[in-house]
């Protein structure tokens, strides 16, 4: 089926501000290689999880798709519903903003404390001039609130964000995304700041919206088990590069890439295993300014060979559409 969203060779490189002195001595412009050469497709109603640690560029990718970075920093082609999101002059097509919306990580910060809930949800309607008449707008808002599980919607209209719990606030954010009935929602760590007990409510709401409204999601998270629980496909990112991509069950049960294997191996499991020897990667994700040569994971990879140091691997796709960005392809012994 025709992909809803298609990303081809997306690159995001932030220039580091050079001081006057450096400009005069024209020292080379240093770049932060946040995202390098990512190509993805998201079908209608599909949930694609992007998994990675902090510094992997997953949020930058999400924002790039949402056109939140200024265009001279983002390279590569983004096509939505078959056509590019920028018109010939490079300006963003206005209705793209209606078809796509974003849920942010921190429910305490993503709502303006000075606005009532009604004003927050009315904002997208106002910006896109969906309707002039007050009553119709209010009904749309109440409907969105009910849809997001905040029923009865009327009772939330003139309350302020600080009167709501984390979970309720995240529902308001979802309601304000729903009101423009988007086709794609980019959810950047939507539940990581919520108490565990409230988490699955929000996830179940997202799944329900997928069934009812055929909304597809770009679900960005650092928690690979959460990604497995809710998404159809998983893409694992490290230092701006896509290390592995495939169906959720396949990537979890038969991880091919050493980085994914390490991530799954280190995931806390609900049983005592203190004495087992676990494969722990040494060090932390380096800063993406001076990128390691060859495969960017080679300094920390337990299976690194000399080839990894100087040759960039080619993404290798198997017949089930399971991609592994690595020179070696044997499955890990999986307990």
């Amino acid at each position, binding site marked *: 089926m025709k992909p809803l969203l298609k990303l081809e060779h997306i690159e995001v490189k932030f220039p580091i501000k050079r001081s006057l002195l450096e400009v005069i001595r024209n020292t080379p412009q240093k770049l932060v290689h946040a995202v390098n050469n990512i190509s993805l497709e998201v079908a209608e109603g599909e949930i694609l999880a992007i998994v990675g640690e902090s510094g992997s560029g997953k949020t930058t990718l999400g924002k790039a798709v949402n056109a939140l970075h200024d265009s001279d920093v983002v390279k590569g082609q983004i096509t939505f519903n078959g056509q590019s999101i920028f018109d010939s002059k490079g300006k963003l097509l206005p209705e793209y903003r209606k078809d796509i919306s974003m849920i942010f990580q921190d429910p305490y910060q993503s*709502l303006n404390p000075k606005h009532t809930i009604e004003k927050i949800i009315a904002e*997208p309607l106002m*910006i896109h001039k969906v309707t002039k008449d007050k009553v119709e707008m209010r009904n749309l808002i109440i409907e969105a609130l009910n849809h997001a599980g905040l029923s009865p919607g009327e009772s939330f209209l003139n309350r302020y964000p600080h009167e709501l719990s984390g979970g309720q606030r995240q529902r308001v*954010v979802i309601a304000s995304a729903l009101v*423009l009935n988007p086709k794609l929602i980019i959810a950047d760590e939507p539940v990581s700041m919520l108490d565990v007990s409230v988490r699955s409510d929000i996830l179940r709401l997202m799944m329900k919206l997928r069934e009812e409204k055929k909304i597809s999601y770009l679900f960005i998270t650092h928690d690979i088990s959460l990604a497995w629980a809710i998404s159809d496909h998983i893409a694992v990112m490290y230092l701006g590069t896509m290390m592995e991509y495939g169906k959720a069950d396949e990537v979890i049960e038969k991880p091919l890439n050493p980085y994914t294997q390490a991530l799954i191996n280190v995931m806390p499991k609900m049983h005592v295993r203190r004495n087992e020897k676990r494969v722990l990667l040494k060090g932390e994700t380096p800063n993406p300014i001076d990128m390691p040569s060859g495969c960017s994971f080679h300094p920390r990879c337990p299976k690194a060979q000399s080839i990894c140091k100087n040759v960039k691997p080619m993404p290798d796709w198997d017949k089930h559409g399971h991609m592994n960005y690595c020179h070696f392809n044997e499955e890990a012994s999986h307990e």
Partner: protein
Amino acid sequence: MKKNSFIKLFIKNKMGRIGMIIFMIFVMVALVGPVIVQYDPQDFGEKEDVLQPPSLTHFLGTDDLGRDVFKAIVAGSRVSLIVGIMATLISMVIGTSLGITSGYFGGRIDDFLMRLTDIFLVLPWLPLMLVLAALLGASIWNIILVIGVTGWAGTARIVRAQTLTEKERQYIERAKSIGASHFHIIKHHIFPNVFPLIFANTILVTAVSILSETTLSFLGMGDVSKPSWGTTLHFAFESGALSNKAYWYFVPPGLCVLLLVLSFTLMGFALDEIVNPKLRER
């Protein structure tokens, strides 16, 4: 936080309450006073009326030209208040708009505006005012303009700092992702969140403006046709009220300035404690 809880917190704050009461008294005096008490700086009293101590006819005695000091103070209150508030409005408008623009847009505009603010912060403000007042002539509107134009730098710097923090908040990014324009973001998101700080700062800047007006008038730059407390103090000092111990002539006007400015500082600090969560009592 909602409006009425804001006011409730303000009333509950002891400093805020005292400040508000003093301020209200002066506003009453300024509004009602000149209607009841006609004070004409030109009609000088008779010779024997000069420098009389406080008495029933003249509650606060008379000045070196036989004029009633109490009437002068009542008339002066209106001038001091008006000049203080008007000058502050000018400073706030310039300071806020520059602060928000340079904070929100950043880049070259920010650098240029910040250098401009630095220059105004560095210029010695009183001599600058004196020179401007001297060059423009000592009418009350020039005084207001002069104080206003030289007083905006501090506000600009504070507002810019607050805008920088607001700009990084996630609800700004959310507004951008919905497609909100810069103007919409500033109007609906940045300004409402920076306003409490602007309001608290306005109160403190008014205190400084009143002090500036008094000092300018004391140094002889005031508008003689509309005497303020500073002008009264100027004539008191020039006429040597000090040496012949006419304390009723030079103490009350100064005291009024002190109380009015104190009322603004008290309110300003009370607001600051409410706005700044770190200072708030737990």
